[in-house]
């Protein structure tokens, strides 16, 4: 029962944060003094991106969608309504493409590099950290410095270096994009084979940094646990090492789960920039071009998606921790 209540609280909390995020997504771009649409359309015109009639259409569309003549709170509800219907608006720069289309084209690529990077990075990183902590000695020192370095290298820095060394100078892997020129994305083996070569470098840039980060964290936690009283007590009672190790792991892993959620946010951020470096057509590149053209609906939509992803990750991590650590549930439900 404590668990159910705990999960319930976390859900409610997530919803609250989501609402705040929606508010921010809505309000912040509208903080520009003056009619945003005028400013935006003016910029579009100045940038030579769209012609006179198109500008007029954009202007009307935007005014209509957001009902800028209506009071702000009403606009907010229209916005929320749209979001919940899955309508994220229409793009400015790529008018009349809908934001949904653009995002659905870009999202799979981003997921393709980020999801495997998170999973592999987390598993390998934690394993490495734990082994280093247990073995100690040179392995530990080397692994620690190495991981520290990898984790403090900004992902895009690693991306740039990898790109340069492997692709440009080494010529081993392609330099940019997601698939070879002339091919169209499809679910065929041939396409996958080609796309994979483009996938390697972005994936490695992310995964290496992530491994570094996890290893450092896990190592600290494992060292901490290794010196704890219960390990000593177990040893004093002649408990086999194998049994104790399982519990060291469990205790050391706990914070890593919480950390997982937070570092997902970090990974996403790093991933966005990495995409830029590799001209990988994911959300990062989309965001980049949207910023460059002041395409507010797209920017807004992407930030919202990022927020949702992080919130879900946080919630999942919290629930998982609740399952594993009995104290958390106890604290939350006031048992102590």
């Amino acid at each position, binding site marked *: 029962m404590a668990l159910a209540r705990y999960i319930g609280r976390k859900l409610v909390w997530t919803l609250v944060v989501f609402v705040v995020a929606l508010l921010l997504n809505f309000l912040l771009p509208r903080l520009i003094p003056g009619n945003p649409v005028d400013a935006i359309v003016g910029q579009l015109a100045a940038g030579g991106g769209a012609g006179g009639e198109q500008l007029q259409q954009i202007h009307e569309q935007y005014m209509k969608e957001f009902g800028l003549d209506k009071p702000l709170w009403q606009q907010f509800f229209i916005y929320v309504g749209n979001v919940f219907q899955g309508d994220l608006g229409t793009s400015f720069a790529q008018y009349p493409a809908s934001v949904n289309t653009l995002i659905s084209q870009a999202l799979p690529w981003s997921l393709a590099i980020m999801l495997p990077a998170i999973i592999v990075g987390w598993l390998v990183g934690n394993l490495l950290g734990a082994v280093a902590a247990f073995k100690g000695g040179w392995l530990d020192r080397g692994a620690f410095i190495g991981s520290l370095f990898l984790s403090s*290298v900004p992902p895009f820095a690693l991306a740039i270096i990898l790109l340069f060394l492997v692709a440009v100078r080494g010529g081993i892997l392609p330099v940019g994009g997601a698939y070879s020129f002339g091919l169209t994305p499809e679910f065929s083996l041939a396409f996958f084979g080609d796309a994979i070569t483009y996938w390697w470098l972005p994936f490695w840039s992310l995964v290496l940094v992530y491994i570094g980060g996890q290893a450092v964290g896990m190592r600290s936690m494992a060292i901490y646990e290794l010196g704890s009283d219960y390990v000593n007590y177990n040893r004093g009672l002649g408990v086999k090492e194998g049994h104790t190790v399982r519990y060291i792991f469990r205790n050391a892993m706990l914070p890593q789960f919480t950390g997982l959620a937070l570092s997902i946010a970090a990974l996403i951020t790093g991933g966005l920039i990495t995409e830029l470096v590799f001209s990988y057509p994911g959300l990062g590149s989309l965001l980049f071009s949207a910023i460059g053209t002041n395409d507010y609906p797209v920017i807004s939509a992407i930030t919202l998606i990022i927020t949702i992803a992080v919130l879900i990750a946080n919630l999942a991590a919290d629930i998982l921790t609740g399952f594993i650590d009995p104290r958390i549930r106890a604290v939350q439900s006031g048992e102590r």
Partner: protein
Amino acid sequence: MSLRGLSPRFWVAVVLVAFVVLVGLVGPLIVSTNPDATVGGLYDEPRCCGPLMLGADNEGQSVIANLVYGTRTSLIIGLIAGLIGTAIGLLVGLVAGYRGGWLDDVLSAIVNVGLAIPVLVIVILVSVSLPQRNLYTLALVIGFTGWFWVARAVRAQSSSIRTREHIDVAKLSGAGFWSILRRDVLPYLLSYVVMACILQISSAILFESTLSMLGLGASNTTSLGTMLYWAIQWGSVRTGAWWAFIPPTVMLTLIVFSLLLLQSSLNEVFNPRLRRGRAARKKAVKEGTELETSVEADDAGPVGSGGFLETPVSAGQDR
């Protein structure tokens, strides 16, 4: 805290940080070229030993001049944003933790919301809406959005310090709220604050470069991030003009790495519990430098968050 407790790692970190600061401080004086002056053609190759020592960038400007000025800019932004962030986090955390009550509830709720929403999202949204973006507005934005984790950690600690006896003594002798905070609570947090500040600075520098690479950087000054932005925009990587992107990358990595190294070695000094071995820790406990709520494990800051220092990979949270 004896000097003997400072590991070689610490000294390496100090040297690296000092080097970077020197580049930013003194560099512009040594490299007398104006970073905005055209000294060559598009991506001219490096030539010893004048302004083209690291070649020219996409506008024909001296890379080394831009590098040096860019380092300075990035450092300034990092410093300002880091200090602002630490200060706000410290203040909010102190008041919330020590005061308790409804004030604590309100502040904690704000902090938790702030922690839940990815900082990048907020920063992007705010930056995009700014009418103009310069060095200082950028620093302010980064500073004002990055303090949440500091507040949470400080709050945890100050609320445990609140129950210690010397606080009662201070209250009994009539000391006021702010006086107690300043003289009886703050000193205990000092070591943590120092480390948090280092992390804030390094995370702010990373943030700035990320923003710049996305095109949201300062519009009138060169920073390491803007150098990379232009390097990517103009395809320097593809054409192999390594001097356009390797120097700023190396510089950025150096800064971040050295700051993190500094923080982690300081962590071991301030929190002897992280040292290996139970006897070492028992010895450390005897030495008396113990921070409550195990700082080294909880909320130790944005270490190891996979290269992008957004929020702490917090171990153990509010156990």
